[in-house]
């Protein structure tokens, strides 16, 4: 078991870090303040395969291994978690379901534009009455000839404001919601598909999270991923993959907060000494470093299991649970270490603090992650 990063992973990290620091670094603060999605940086990311990180080469993707993928998301999130969020949602829960469950025709139709970043993906599951309880979904897709007509409202859709290809989780038989769910691919421009207002959120503000309205939205049956009833299976598999991306995103946040804390504690002097010479601060830094390291190893382990082709649901859930908890704890401590300055928008730590919290909520709350892990644990013991 070699815990040293291989050369490829080192080079990927450096290349993405350089890009992130150069292109996102100068604007990260402002896009959060103004809740502005940085389309100009997205344009630069497109030819570099940021929107097709694991997509097959045949469709214009980079076909990277999962650890490389996690590194990319982490490094982007280290500078701007909101942009990292856009990328992970697009790659993990936008492109991946189509790669895994799509027909050759669907892949050919949808993937090239997505892998090239022309169409940004979004996965739409959550509704007003359906958060952790996916069974409470009320969006309905009714068969009409060789089409489906979809009606419903999806909320808190990440990338909603800029998405070009949405994967809509809908039920096809209201009598039998669990077994009749399906994932429908709906493209922007399709009549009956409308984007609602952008949410005003505590963090991840540069990501245009919004509602999506489906009103008599008609799509051909060839836009259904898999067969009717596969929705639950696709949803669960998708969320497994998504967890790795979110874990990487949370890790990037924690890393950024930690680095800033180390630097600040060396520079800031009180009682004529740098605060890094005080044991309390040293303890904080030690705990932060240990948690981040543990989170990182959990994440890469989940990536490795996935790439080995084995079931990785529990491992991914552990990674997401732990990375997001680490992000919240580390960013909280980071603000504390920065003292009054940490509370000011002049420093980045308050943004990391605001951004971190949601990593414990979306793509499966920490409570749901525990459900997944405990089921796996209990299943193994028999």
């Amino acid at each position, binding site marked *: 078991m070699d815990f040293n990063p291989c050369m*490829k992973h080192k080079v990927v990290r450096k290349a993405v870090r350089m890009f992130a620091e150069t292109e996102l670094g100068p604007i990260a603060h402002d896009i959060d303040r103004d809740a502005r999605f940085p389309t100009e940086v997205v344009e630069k990311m497109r030819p570099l395969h*940021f929107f*097709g990180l694991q997509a097959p080469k045949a469709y214009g993707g980079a076909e990277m291994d999962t650890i490389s993928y996690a590194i990319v998301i982490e490094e982007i999130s280290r500078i701007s978690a909101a942009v990292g969020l856009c990328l992970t949602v697009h790659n993990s829960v936008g492109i991946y379901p189509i790669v895994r469950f799509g027909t050759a025709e669907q892949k050919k139709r949808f993937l090239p534009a997505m892998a090239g970043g022309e169409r940004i993906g979004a996965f739409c599951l959550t509704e007003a009455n359906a958060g952790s309880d996916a069974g409470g979904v009320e969006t309905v897709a009714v068969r009409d000839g060789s089409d489906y007509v979809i009606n419903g409202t999806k909320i808190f859709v990440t990338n909603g404001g800029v998405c070009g290809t949405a994967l809509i989780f809908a039920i096809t038989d209201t009598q039998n919601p669990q077994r009749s769910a399906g994932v429908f691919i709906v493209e922007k421009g399709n009549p009956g598909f409308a984007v609602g207002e952008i949410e005003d959120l505590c963090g991840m503000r540069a990501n245009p999270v919004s509602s999506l309205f489906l009103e008599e939205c008609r799509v051909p049956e060839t836009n259904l991923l898999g067969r009717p009833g596969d929705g639950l299976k696709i949803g669960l598999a998708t969320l497994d993959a998504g967890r790795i991306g979110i874990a990487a995103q949370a890790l990037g946040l924690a890393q950024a907060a930690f680095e800033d804390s180390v630097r600040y504690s060396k520079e800031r002097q009180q009682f004529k000494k740098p605060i890094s010479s005080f044991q309390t601060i040293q303890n904080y830094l030690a705990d932060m470093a240990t948690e981040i390291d543990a989170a990182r190893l959990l994440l890469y382990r989940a990536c490795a299991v996935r790439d080995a082709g084995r079931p990785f649901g529990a491992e991914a859930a552990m990674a997401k649970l732990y990375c997001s908890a680490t992000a919240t704890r580390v960013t909280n401590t980071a603000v504390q270490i920065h003292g009054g300055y940490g509370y000011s928008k002049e420093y980045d730590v308050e943004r990391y603090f605001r951004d971190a919290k949601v990593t414990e909520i979306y793509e499966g709350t920490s409570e749901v992650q525990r459900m997944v892990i405990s089921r796996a644990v209990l299943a193994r013991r028999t």
Partner: protein
Amino acid sequence: MLKMVVCIKQVPMVSELPWDPATGTLQRDLAEGMMNPACRSALDAALRIKETGGGEITAITMGPPMAEEVLREAIALGADRGVLLTDLKMAGADTSVTSHTLARAIEKACPGFDLVLCGFSTSDSETAQVGPQLAEELDIPGVAYIDEIGVFGQTVRMQRFTDHFLETLEMDLPGLVTVNTGRYAPRNVPLGGLQAAFDGADIVSLDAAAIGLDPERIGAKGSATKILNVYSPTAGKKNIVLTGAPKRIVEQLFERFDDKIGGAIGKDLKTERK
């Protein structure tokens, strides 16, 4: 087919400089490396030539084993193959020895080359000497600090702005140029290219024996200069801190430094005493 060789150096990432003020030394082995910015420009120039008129690019680097990273990056950006010159005996080389090593390696690994491109200088040693010295070793014409280059058959035309002269020059291939950062801006690395560069890339590793070098003439042994001492110029800098109301601060500033500021701007800043 135009055969190009791009010389690339891996230099420490500036923001990662591990400097030990206690011992006064640079811990080079701890620093992460990156492709020297000017070498990126040289690679960009070669890539543009390849894109407009065709050609084949070999990226070559001399360094410790981890210098392979820059070759992979070069291939990800569009170079066709890489050559890594690595050998403990090569360590500690000054520019003259480096140019000798590179020259012999280029002759061995890229026979029949047409154009050698180097960055004009490196961000660590900043000597700007290897390029011209390499031209001498290879006994080919060379032009340093070019801003622009165009290939016309077996002749290249170059433009540069040096020492207040805007010059257009020409030379017949084979030749060498060192490239200025500016027009040839470094490009971002496509991630798909990186993946491919690691999946299966043509990278050859050569040591001193493989190139046929005399061990007495390379590395620190062959170098004419010796470093006596290295230090950080700003270490232990004591500065003056001014705080308080802006008006008072500015008063203090002029109280102490009116001569200094006045001298720099060429005006007398002392207030008249009544």
